[in-house]
């Protein structure tokens, strides 16, 4: 089963069609909407598998299909799609995870009045995300990039009658748009410098050597190569979308959306789009590597941002009480890992982690959703507890996800992908700091996940919801089981001993495995750190479980001030509100004041001067232009009254005036030598 590249557009087109049908389906057509959406995505999944088979036949090739969008000057603006292993793996992952989450949603939202609209938006998201994945043009990618942003906005605000959801949706859109503007600028700069936005175009694309050499050769402000500057601007987009520091603040708030949305968009796919973007334009990002004179390489910035984010997300996650927020900060942290991997030069490690993370994080979110649904929308872990008994499947799958995320060795996919990243960071010769950050984050990740599992599933139920929790219906548990299977199995596609996935991504057909003992020291260290994290977590939270909701957190009892800082997310929101928010408010106020008083006032002043020259007017009090206008008409009216008093109605008088004027006129002409 092969899918030729020319037909690649079918993959996003099918969900798009489903979204269109969903938009027109009345509220009652729940079954129809869900069937169409799931059916379309299932077909897309099959097509993606076909595309993967095509791509793996020649993994080094970038199959492209480009077409004209519109005329521009003497040429045309062209878009297109590309098929290579990166695209194909991503498409398979998106469609497969998406399919499972769609199925899960039919159970999770079974009681929601806007069920059809939910599937319409989900399909729209899937279409945009798949379009993003197959794009062979930065412009097409940007278009889909914004559309996934739109879908994210709509789905975070799905329960728009809740003010918090509406505010979170807006915050997500605006914050990511800040990054997107960088991407837009990078894109126009790239277009301006190379005259094309196609990635691969038979030698003329921007990711092909001719264009890259030209970009790296030219210098711009601050001694940066153009490719560095463009790369950094494009990275801005990735920072916004992937919730990297300093634009990470929207992602935890985005948890106001329904949980399947959090699983699909804010864990598995969309937030990973930033990583995908950097991986896609990787040739551009590394174009400045040979240049020694460049003050900073693009990838160095990527690595720094990734390291900071990985650490920051993990630290803040420790102090949270909301299940979904813990998972959200965990996502931030894991995305930081991926960026770190990109920055230290191993994009395949990043993509491998992206794929495994998509599965186990989707699993974690869906399992959390199962808990929340069973506990009547209780998300605060202080009010949960003791769910291990009533929710066996959920607990088992959640535990598998936790172990994958924490990096429990050998069996779980997260271990292998994280090892790849740490290995790459170890090999980076610029600075050891990313490695240290990654290692610290390993401990923290294991710690906060252990805390989460202990608080939610062990001990006793501390709330009404948790006390009456029952296992979720099969539409929800079956996707959990499948995802749990993948969270284990996927790791074996990329072990150091048999790195099939990495080789295919890099376009190689032969696989160079090596013994696990190579670099075994690092692996042993990280296993030790995972054990340390889990042990510490268990020691604090597992041995003596919380008994009532109001009890003080054990860690908070030990380091109260630091812990409350973590609970308040290190005050990033407050900081931004006090700086950026204030600045924007102030500018708006200034612009408004300028408008109302300075510009308008100047004009009024000028018009007042004109009026003053015309007739002195003492009554222009209220405001000069209109008051002046009124006064002007009043003056005219007074003059008119004076003249109208001369209108005596006496026809003789008029005629006399005419006669006398005539006489005067003739005399003036004659005496004035008018001849």
């Amino acid at each position, binding site marked *: 089963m092969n899918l030729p590249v020319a037909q690649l557009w079918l993959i996003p087109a099918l969900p798009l069609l489903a979204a269109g049908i969903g938009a027109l389906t009345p509220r009652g057509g729940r079954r129809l909407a869900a069937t169409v959406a799931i059916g379309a995505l299932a077909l897309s999944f099959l097509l993606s598998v076909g595309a993967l088979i095509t791509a793996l036949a020649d993994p080094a090739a970038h199959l492209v299909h480009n077409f004209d969008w519109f005329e521009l000057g003497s040429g045309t603006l062209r878009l297109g799609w590309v098929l290579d292993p990166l695209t194909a793996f991503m498409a398979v992952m998106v469609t497969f995870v998406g399919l499972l989450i769609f199925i899960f949603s039919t159970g999770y939202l079974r009681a929601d009045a806007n069920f059809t609209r939910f599937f319409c938006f989900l399909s729209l998201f899937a279409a945009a995300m798949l379009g993003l994945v197959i794009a062979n043009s930065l412009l097409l990618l940007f278009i889909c990039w914004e559309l996934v942003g739109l879908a994210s906005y709509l789905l975070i605000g799905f329960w728009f009658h809740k003010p918090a959801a509406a505010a979170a949706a807006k915050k997500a859109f605006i914050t990511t748009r800040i990054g997107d503007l960088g991407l837009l600028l990078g894109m126009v700069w790239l277009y301006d410098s190379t005259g094309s936005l196609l990635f691969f175009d038979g030698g003329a694309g921007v990711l092909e050597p001719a264009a890259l050499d030209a970009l790296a050769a030219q210098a711009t402000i601050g001694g940066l190569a153009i490719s560095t500057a463009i790369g950094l601007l494009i990275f801005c987009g990735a920072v916004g979308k992937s919730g990297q520091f300093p634009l990470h603040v929207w992602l935890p708030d985005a948890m106001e959306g329904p949980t399947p949305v959090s699983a699909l968009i804010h864990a598995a796919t969309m937030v990973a789009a930033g990583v995908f973007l950097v991986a896609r334009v990787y040739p551009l990002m590394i174009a400045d590597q040979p240049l020694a004179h460049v003050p900073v390489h693009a990838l160095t910035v990527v690595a720094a941002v990734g390291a900071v984010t990985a650490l920051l997300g993990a630290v803040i996650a420790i102090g949270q009480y909301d299940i979904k927020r813990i998972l959200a900060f965990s996502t931030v942290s894991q995305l930081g890992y991926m960026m770190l991997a990109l920055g230290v030069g191993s994009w395949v490690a990043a993509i491998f982690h992206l794929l495994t993370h998509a599965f186990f994080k989707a699993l974690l979110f869906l399992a959390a959703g199962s808990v929340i649904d069973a506990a009547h929308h209780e998300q605060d872990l202080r009010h949960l507890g003791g769910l291990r008994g009533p929710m066996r499947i959920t607990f088992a799958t959640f535990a598998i996800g936790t172990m994958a995320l924490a990096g429990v060795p050998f069996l779980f996919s997260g271990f292998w992908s994280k090892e790849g990243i740490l290995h790459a960071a170890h090999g980076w010769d610029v600075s050891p700091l990313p490695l240290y950050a990654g290692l610290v984050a390993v401990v923290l990740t294991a710690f906060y996940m252990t805390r989460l599992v202990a608080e939610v599933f062990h001990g006793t139920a501390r709330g009404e919801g948790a006390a009456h929790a029952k296992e979720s219906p099969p539409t929800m548990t079956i996707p959990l089981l499948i995802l749990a299977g993948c969270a284990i199995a996927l790791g074996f596609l990329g072990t150091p001993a048999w790195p099939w996935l990495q080789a295919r991504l890099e376009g190689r057909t032969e696989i160079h495995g090596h013994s696990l003992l190579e670099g075994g020291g690092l692996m042993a260290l990280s296993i030790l750190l995972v054990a340390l994290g889990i042990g510490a977590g268990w020691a604090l939270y597992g041995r003596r479980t919380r008994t009532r909701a109001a009890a003080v957190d054990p860690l908070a009892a030990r380091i109260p001030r630091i812990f409350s800082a973590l609970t308040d997310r290190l005050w990033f929101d407050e900081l931004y509100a006090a700086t950026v928010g204030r600045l924007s408010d102030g500018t708006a106020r200034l612009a408004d004041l300028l408008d109302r008083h300075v510009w308008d006032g100047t004009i009024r002043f000028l018009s007042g001067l004109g009026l003053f020259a015309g007739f002195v007017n003492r009554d222009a009090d209220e405001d000069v232009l209109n008051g002046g206008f009124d006064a002007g008409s009043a003056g005219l009216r007074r003059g008119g009254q004076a003249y*109208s008093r001369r209108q005596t109605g006496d026809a003789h008088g008029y005629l006399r005036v005419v006669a006398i004027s005539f006489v005067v006129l003739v005399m003036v002409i004659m005496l004035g030598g008018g001849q």
Partner: protein
Amino acid sequence: MSFGPLQLCLLFSSALFCVGLMGALSRSNAILVLLGIELMLNAANINFIAFWRYGPEPSPATGVIFVIFAIAIAAAEAAVGLALVIAIYRHQRNIRLQEADTLKG
């Protein structure tokens, strides 16, 4: 100082014009005012004919045509004017022009 026919005609028309003007200015009866104005119009017509006939650049028919049109318009004017006089009379039971000042400011 001898007068050519043109000067004579012009003096004649000037005198007629001023007689009409005097009537229009000094009489209060609206009909007489209108008649004075008719006289002034006639004086103007005399000038046209005079210049047509004795002017420095005699032309074939312009003056005559002009006068014919002026007479026609004067007829119209007289008809409308006198109708107005009758309307005024009906309104205020006299035709004293100085009393028809409803439109004063």
